[in-house]
C-alpha cells in the first residue's frame, strides 16, 4: 500500500485544491452579487440616465480585458472584481427604473431575479453533483456568443422586436451552457484561479438576468 501513497496523496491534494477554489469562488460570488445589488440601488437612487448603462458596461469590459488578466493572481484582483461587478450593478439602475415604471414592474424584476437564481443554482448543482466534464462545449459556446453579438450588432440598426426576443432567448440558453462549462472547469481543474472563476460565473448570472427580464417584460402583455 505504501507504494500507492504518493498517487493517493496527490489525488487527495487535487480534490482539496478543487474544493478550495470552489469555496472561494462561491464566497466571492455571493459577496459581489450583494455589492452589485447595492450599486444598482445607488444607481436607481441617484436617477442615472440611459448613458450610464453604456459607460458602466464599457468600463467593466475594459477592466475585464486590460486589468483583470494582470491582477488575477494577486490580492489586487479582488478589488478589480468588485470594481467590475460594481460597475455592472450600477449599469442596471436605468433599466430597473424603467421596469419599475410599469404597473407590474416590481413583479417582473422579482420573477427575473428568482428565475435567474433557480437557473444558476440548478445548473451549478447539476454540474457539481454529476461532476461531468463539459469542456467539449467550449468552442460551440464561443462561436454561439459571436453569432449572438453579430445579431445584436445588426439589431441596433434594424431594431426588429422579434429579433430582440430571439436574441434574449438565445442568450439565456447560451449562458446556461456557460454555467455548466464554467462550473465543470472548476471541478475538473481547468480553472484554478477563483478570481477568474468568479468573474466568469458573475457574467453568466448577469446576462441571464438582463435577458430574462427583457423576455418577461416583452411577453408580459403590459405596455
Amino acid at each position, binding site marked *: 500500500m505504501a507504494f500507492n501513497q504518493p498517487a493517493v496523496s496527490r489525488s487527495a491534494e487535487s480534490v482539496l485544491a478543487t474544493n478550495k477554489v470552489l469555496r472561494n469562488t462561491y464566497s466571492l460570488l455571493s459577496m459581489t452579487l450583494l455589492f452589485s445589488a447595492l450599486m444598482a440601488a445607488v444607481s436607481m437612487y441617484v436617477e442615472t440616465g440611459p448613458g450610464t448603462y453604456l459607460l458602466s458596461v464599457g468600463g467593466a469590459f475594459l477592466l475585464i480585458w486590460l486589468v483583470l488578466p494582470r491582477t488575477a493572481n494577486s490580492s489586487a484582483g479582488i478589488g478589480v472584481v468588485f470594481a467590475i461587478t460594481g460597475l455592472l450593478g450600477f449599469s442596471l439602475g436605468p433599466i430597473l427604473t424603467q421596469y419599475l415604471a410599469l404597473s407590474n414592474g416590481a413583479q417582473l424584476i422579482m*420573477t427575473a431575479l428568482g428565475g435567474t437564481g433557480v437557473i444558476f443554482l440548478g445548473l451549478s448543482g447539476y454540474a457539481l453533483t454529476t461532476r461531468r466534464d*463539459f469542456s467539449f462545449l467550449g468552442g460551440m459556446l464561443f462561436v454561439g456568443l459571436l453569432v449572438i*453579438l453579430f445579431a445584436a450588432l445588426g439589431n*441596433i*440598426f434594424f431594431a426588429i422586436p422579434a429579433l430582440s426576443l430571439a436574441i434574449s432567448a438565445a442568450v439565456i440558453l447560451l449562458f446556461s451552457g456557460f454555467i455548466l462549462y464554467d462550473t465543470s472547469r472548476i471541478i475538473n481543474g481547468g480553472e484554478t484561479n477563483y478570481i477568474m472563476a468568479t468573474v466568469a460565473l458573475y457574467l453568466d448570472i448577469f446576462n441571464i438576468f438582463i435577458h430574462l427580464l427583457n423576455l418577461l417584460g416583452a411577453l408580459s402583455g403590459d405596455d
Partner: protein
Amino acid sequence: MDWFKIGSAILIGAMIIFLLPRARQMVKHSPKAKQGDWQALLIPIGLVVLFVIFLIMSVR
C-alpha cells in the same frame, strides 16, 4: 442615429474583436464530446427552456 446606438455598436464591435481570436482557439482546442455528453447537456438545458416558459406564463 443617436450617440447611444453608435456607442452600443462600438462596444459590441470591440467585444467581437476581442472574442474572435479566443473563439478560434477554443474551436481548435476543445475536446470532442464523448458518448452521453450531449444527453447530459440536453436534459438540463431542456429543463431551463421549460422553466423559462413557465416564468413567461406566470407573468402573462
